[in-house]
């Protein structure tokens, strides 16, 4: 049976394996602080907004049309605060190029606004973006806001992008605008090659408190 943090600390204290400075500090408070410290998350790295953000995108989680060309993409993640709590009242704005590397500035293709579910989770379906002519790497733009937290603009990149030549650790700098290796995510191919496959990516977002 898994031991709770409080029980473990009590046992350690009883056996003399641990001394709590100050003596009077209750074990339960120490256990809570320890748990909180372990829940803490690092803020998602910032990446620039880019030139083609468009306000008032549609509220949807399906960005691709039935007949759109390109590798189907499924992105999912959870929105957290740095203290590890989920942020179900966050708002995510997503935009990207189509499979050919074209942004729709006249309309709202491949642009969406969405809210996380009750567990802070979000998910959307799209296609792997093409290579926009003035940028090196394929990317999806994010603007995420939540009450009491700093807004963040960032970009999701794909480890399968040919510009990384199979080694994002080594070749991340191929695109000088990528600010962190953490933003280049693994791609898992799911589905049946005979019928339907999708490139699945997990991308959690962590917001700093305002």
């Amino acid at each position: 049976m898994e031991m709770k943090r409080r029980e473990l600390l009590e046992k350690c204290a009883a056996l003399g394996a641990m001394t709590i400075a100050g003596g009077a500090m209750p074990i339960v408070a120490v256990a809570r602080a320890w748990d909180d410290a372990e829940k803490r998350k690092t803020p998602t790295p910032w990446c620039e907004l880019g030139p083609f953000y468009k306000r008032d995108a549609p509220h949807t989680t399906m960005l691709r049309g039935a007949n759109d060309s390109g590798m189907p993409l499924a992105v999912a993640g959870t929105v957290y605060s740095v203290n590890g709590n989920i942020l179900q009242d966050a708002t995510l704005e997503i935009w990207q190029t189509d499979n050919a590397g074209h942004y729709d500035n006249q309309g709202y293709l491949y642009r969406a606004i969405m809210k996380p579910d009750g567990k802070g989770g979000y998910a959307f379906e799209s296609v792997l973006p093409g290579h926009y002519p003035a940028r090196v790497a394929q990317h999806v733009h994010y603007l995420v806001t939540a009450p009491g937290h700093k807004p963040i603009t960032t970009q999701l990149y794909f480890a399968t992008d040919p510009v990384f030549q199979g080694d994002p650790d080594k070749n991340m700098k191929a695109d000088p605008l990528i600010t962190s290796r953490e933003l280049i995510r693994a791609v898992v191919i799911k589905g049946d090659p005979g019928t339907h496959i999708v490139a699945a990516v997990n991308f959690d977002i962590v917001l700093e408190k305002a």
Partner: protein
Amino acid sequence: MKRLLGMVIALCCWTFSGNATASAADLKPVASVTLPCESTYQMISPTGKTLAALCNADRSLHVVDIASGKELFAQASDIRISASDFSRDGKWFGVGFWDGTVKIVPLAGGAAQQWRVSEHRIHLIEFLRDGHSVFVDALGDPGQIWDLSGTAKPVATLHSDFSGPSAVAASAYGKLLATGGGDTVMRIYDTGTWKMLHENRNASKLEMFDMDFTPDGKYLLAGGADDHLLVIDAATGEETRKLGGPSGVIDDVSALGDNTHVLVEYVDADDVNKPPVHAIWNLDTQKAQAMPDLETVTGHRVVNGKMWFASTKGTALQIFEYN
């Protein structure tokens, strides 16, 4: 320095194209100078007396006196240069870098100042008309005003909902400063108090890439990703006209001295190798006239109310005035 412009100049030089309705005879040579290097990007100062040239080979930046060809300042590219601007009186030159630092150089001599504004790269520098203040913006950060009297010190931080400004303009008499944000909001400030006078959230749903006031301060002109030239009443912040012309995003807006004509540069965002298209808009008739062909244009600026174009062949640079 405009964002898309930066992309374009990194990849190619500029040429005029399109169905010219104005004549090449409208272009009068006004000056020539030998550059210290081959360059496909130059910034002419507002006085027309100096220019900055970005060297193709090593990306170093050189400020040159146009009449004598003398080099007044050189900036090596050990830290990548990301923005630059001349002050209106030509006394100052500002350079922004990828490491978030800004350098202000007095061109008549004296010590330069360099300081860190942000961890992000600088993408906008605009000298104000008071002769001692500069607007600086680092990507993703709110715009900042710095006072250059003595050691540079921050004076004001301008609001953005998120990200920072993508365009900025100071009015000719210096009383107003306008910003267009990554948040797509246009804001006008009083430069005496830095109070926001107007905030327009409806004029554009996309980012603005450049702005300019007409010389009389009556209108604010703005263009960006939605390929329309926005004409804003500077006294109210409200849109008065939205002029749609050639397709492509607007990368540069320059009001000419007659308060009526505006040079607009359109770039194909899907093909940055394609030469940009230039048009002169008449705000009264709301009609645009295509610009004449010119072999290679590598810079432009409104000088004494007239549009000047720089054109280079090797290190030989010639400046033309458009009438």
